[in-house]
Structure formats: structure tokens, C-alpha cells
């Protein structure tokens, strides 16, 4: 048999084994719920800071949401093999979370985060960047639309009044977190049903 098998054929077979192992490990990723969770966390923080006038509203809500996300992701990841793409996308969001925390927390503590326009513009632009990066890696047009909505909110916040900037932020959260998250969950559910199942 070896005489008929060329070196290229042997390499192709090794590549086939590698690609099938990678394919087998690529399960339907379920991340839609995180968008909804963080959307609700943003709304909770906005409501608490607007009506409660507490400086702790944003840090407490964001830390609570981060802890809840870590617990839920860990519970799901324990029986789910990791893929390179999944790890890359996860890294984008983790890096975004750390960047936002390290930027906004000191600004809030030092009392320099007084201009709502700046906060909304910077936060929206950063969220737009993360969504766009993820959308390009996944080749997912719907997520790129989300990125565009965040960028539009960032620009609107620069030019509008404080009230208009707030409304733009609320609208962006609704479409890019709640609606996009629910859409993602529906899509993940459909994909799982269509593909059949494999149990790790």
C-alpha cells in the first residue's frame, strides 16, 4: 500500500485527521445570554445612578455582572471543549472588560468622569470596536451591524445634548445587547437543532 501512497497523500491524511478533530471539538457556542445579561446590567447601573445618585452604581453593578458571567461561563465550560476561535473571541471581551474597568474606575474615583458625553462616547466606541473585531473574526454581519450602532451612538453622544446622548446610549444598549443577544440565542438554538448532537 505504501508504494501507492505518495508523501502528499500521507500529509493530506494527517491534515484530515487534525481538521476532523478540530471540527469535532467545535460545538455550538452559546454566548447570546451574555449580551442580554450585560444589557440588563447596564440598564440596572443607569437606573441606579440616575435615581439613586450613587457613585457606587456602576462599579458595583459591573463587578456583580462580571462575577456572575465568570460563574456561569465556568459552569458551562467544564464540559465543553475549547476552540482557538472561541478562545480568541473570549479574549476580546475579557480585554474590553479589563480596559473599561481600568479606565472608568480611576476616572470615577478621581471625580473626573463628570461629562456624560465623554463617558457615553468612549464606552460606545470601545463596545463598537469589540463587536466589530468579533464580527470580522466570525464573519457575522448581524454583529457588525451592532458595532455600527455602537459607533453611531458614540458619534451622537459627541454632538447632542446630555439627554440626547443618554437616549442614544439606551437605544444602543437595547439593540446591541438585548435584541442582538436574544437573536443570538434563537440562532444558537436553531443551529443546535439542525446539526444533530454530539456529547463530549
Amino acid at each position, binding site marked *: *500500500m*505504501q508504494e501507492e*501512497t505518495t*508523501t502528499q497523500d*500521507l*500529509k493530506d*491524511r*494527517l491534515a*484530515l*485527521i487534525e481538521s*476532523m*478533530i478540530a*471540527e*469535532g*471539538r467545535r460545538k455550538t457556542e452559546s454566548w447570546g445570554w451574555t449580551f442580554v445579561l450585560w444589557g440588563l446590567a447596564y440598564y440596572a447601573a443607569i437606573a441606579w445612578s440616575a435615581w439613586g445618585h450613587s457613585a457606587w452604581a456602576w462599579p458595583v453593578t459591573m463587578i456583580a455582572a462580571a462575577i456572575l458571567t465568570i460563574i456561569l461561563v465556568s459552569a458551562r465550560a467544564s464540559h465543553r*471543549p475549547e476552540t482557538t476561535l472561541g478562545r480568541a473571541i473570549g479574549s476580546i471581551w475579557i480585554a474590553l472588560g479589563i480596559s473599561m474597568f481600568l479606565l472608568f474606575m480611576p476616572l470615577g474615583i478621581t471625580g473626573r468622569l463628570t461629562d456624560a458625553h465623554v463617558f457615553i462616547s468612549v464606552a460606545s466606541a470601545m463596545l463598537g470596536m469589540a463587536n466589530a473585531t468579533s464580527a470580522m473574526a466570525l464573519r457575522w454581519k448581524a454583529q457588525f451591524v451592532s458595532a455600527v450602532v455602537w459607533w453611531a451612538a458614540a458619534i451622537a453622544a459627541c454632538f447632542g445634548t446630555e439627554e440626547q446622548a443618554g437616549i442614544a446610549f439606551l437605544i444602543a444598549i437595547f439593540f446591541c445587547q438585548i435584541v442582538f443577544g436574544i437573536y443570538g440565542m434563537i440562532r444558537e438554538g436553531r443551529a443546535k437543532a*439542525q*446539526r*444533530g*448532537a*454530539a*456529547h*463530549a
Partner: protein
Amino acid sequence: MPDLPELNPVIHGKLRLALLSLLATVEEAEFTWLRNKTGSTDGNLGAQLAKLEEAGYVQVEKKFVQRKPLTLYRMTDTGRTALTEYVQALKQLLGAAIDA
């Protein structure tokens, strides 16, 4: 020069090799999942899985879930050993080809 290993003819078929590689990553898999991952037709997939079952490399379980038939495939220990030996043989042959 050491003797070169023979490649297992049961695993050597590309679709059968793909199926064993896929099954090596999961505990069990449905027929539809294997079909979608390999892009194979139902007839060809069924025939190749039957050959793997005949060789004792995969185990089949048929059951009904909510009145719908469900066929589950899982790799046996013999199948896992055979795939490991096949990969080792491939690497040995490639190494020999490079040295030649």
C-alpha cells in the same frame, strides 16, 4: 533501514478516517451530526459506518426519543487503538519519506 509499517486498510478510506477522527473527540455522536460534519450522503455514510462497526471500531446504539428514531455512534477502545496506531504509522512513513 527498519521495516515500514502497513497502513490499516479499514481506516485508510478517507471518509472512515474522518469519521474515526470525529468520534475520537466526543463520547457519542448522532448520525446527523456525523453527516453534517463530513458533508457525506446518507447512503455512503451508512455504508462506511457499517464497515467500521464490522471491524469493531465503532459501537451503534439505536433508540427512540420522543417517538423519533435516534442512532448514536461511539468509538470503541479497539477503534481508538487502531486510530492511534494508524497515526503513528503515518508519521513513521512520512519520516521515512523525508529521510529518503
